[in-house]
């Protein structure tokens, strides 16, 4: 370690892997946990108390679909009591009457609602869920009526990239303060479905122009945050703001990880909350210390002037593409494997079928076993 470990600011709590949608790019691990593996209410409450003590200021309540947890209101109330900022990340289908208002009353600070498409047909196809779009529109209205601020999240890939202008209009019409245009990251289910999801280069370039123009036009009206697609990038993202630097995530069974895809690095061992305290995991877990700071870096990161800007990029992507979790993220132009990203784009595009229906999706399902070979398209 080259510097002292500072307390974490943010935590992503994946309360459950259960979800009514089956998006083929879900960021959950490919091996999903069933309901009987989920930590109980007392477990989550104890974890949240320890997180607040440790210095966590912001908790994202996510899943799967977190609103499937009947104890969500109780969890929110606990966090509000401790002054922790709460953000609920939901697909917004099938939320019973009165619950959104109850969460607002309990102290929920913000809701992020996903839309798989800007139009009903796209939303239904991508999530494999009939009627989902109308339910989401209704959820958005209820969120605003409850006085809660709203972010619309739009995960972008080949099958909805042309709808980006429509996503912007949709978010504006729903009264959202913020819109996330988030290009799918190829980990978890998205890695499995990479061939079916990969956009064409020209479409990505058009998208960048549209988003930049809208960001300028809508300054002070709606914030648009753009998550760029790694495979088309020059420099990598500072994934999680740096490994185990100021944020972490917790899986439904209480396993604490530096990021949601860290389980794909098979050489790492992760502790479960309850076996260890949260503070001990944050400070002493070998998985958290594996890529903390900069001393673990290889060349070209080791001598790079950007090492504390992007922190070597994504460890899981290095694992998936380079086969080495401590290699430079191949998204970086300085990586000797950067050209492989372009080759994977071209392979995905050249093998796609003439029609653009997502028939080739392996939809996300609990209990399905799948084989992954991320190094070939």
């Amino acid at each position: 370690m080259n510097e002292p470990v500072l307390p974490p600011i943010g935590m992503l709590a994946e309360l459950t892997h259960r979800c009514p949608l089956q998006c083929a790019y879900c960021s959950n691990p490919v091996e999903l946990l069933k309901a009987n593996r989920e930590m109980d209410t007392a477990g989550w409450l104890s974890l949240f108390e320890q997180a607040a003590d440790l210095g966590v200021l912001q908790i994202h309540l996510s899943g799967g679909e977190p609103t499937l947890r009947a104890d969500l209101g109780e969890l929110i109330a606990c966090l509000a009591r401790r002054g922790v900022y709460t953000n609920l990340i939901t697909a917004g289908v099938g939320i019973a009457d009165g619950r959104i208002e109850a969460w607002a009353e309990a102290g929920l600070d913000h809701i992020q609602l996903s839309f798989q498409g800007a139009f009903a047909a796209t939303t239904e196809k991508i999530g494999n869920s009939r009627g989902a779009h109308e339910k989401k529109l209704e959820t958005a209205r209820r969120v605003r009526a409850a006085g809660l601020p709203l972010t619309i999240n739009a995960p972008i890939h080949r099958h909805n990239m042309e709808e980006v202008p429509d996503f912007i209009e949709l978010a504006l019409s729903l009264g959202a303060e913020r819109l996330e245009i988030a290009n799918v990251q190829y980990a978890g289910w998205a890695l499995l479905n990479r061939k079916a999801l990969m956009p064409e280069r020209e479409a990505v370039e058009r998208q960048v122009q549209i988003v930049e123009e809208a960001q300028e036009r809508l300054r002070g009206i709606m914030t648009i945050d753009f998550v760029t697609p790694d495979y088309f990038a020059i420099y990598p993202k500072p994934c999680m703001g740096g490994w185990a630097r100021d944020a972490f995530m917790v899986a439904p069974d209480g396993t604490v990880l530096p990021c949601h895809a860290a389980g794909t690095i098979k050489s790492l061992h992760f502790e479960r909350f309850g076996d260890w305290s949260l503070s001990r995991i944050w400070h002493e877990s070998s998985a958290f210390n594996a890529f903390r700071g900069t001393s673990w870096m290889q060349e070209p990161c080791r001598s790079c002037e950007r090492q504390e800007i992007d922190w070597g990029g994504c460890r899981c992507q290095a694992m998936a593409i380079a086969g080495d979790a401590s290699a430079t993220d191949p998204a970086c132009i300085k990586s000797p494997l950067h050209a492989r990203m372009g080759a994977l784009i071209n392979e995905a595009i050249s093998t796609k079928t003439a029609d653009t229906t997502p028939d080739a999706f392996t939809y996300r399902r609990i209990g399905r076993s799948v084989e992954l070979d991320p190094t070939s398209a």
Partner: protein
Amino acid sequence: MTGASRVRAVVSMQSRPILKSHARLQYDTVREAWALLSPERVFWPNEVSLDILRLCDGRHTVAQMTALLADHYAADEAEIAPDVTGFLQEWSDKFLVTL
């Protein structure tokens, strides 16, 4: 609310800024510093920013805020006014305050 009806709020000396309900200014006992919490980000305001934010209570106009700050920092009102309005416009654009 329709998309077309939404316009950018622009600061004036008569604005009465108020911190938005989803932006929360609170003292962090772990780091012994004031934090401004918002949907995706945590801001760490410096002393001057903190003084301006604390006056964002919906009662003080920007003119009154400027006068109070000029007095507090023994500075010239006309000199600091562009800084104050600049801050407030930026925070309004980031959805932290309502003008």
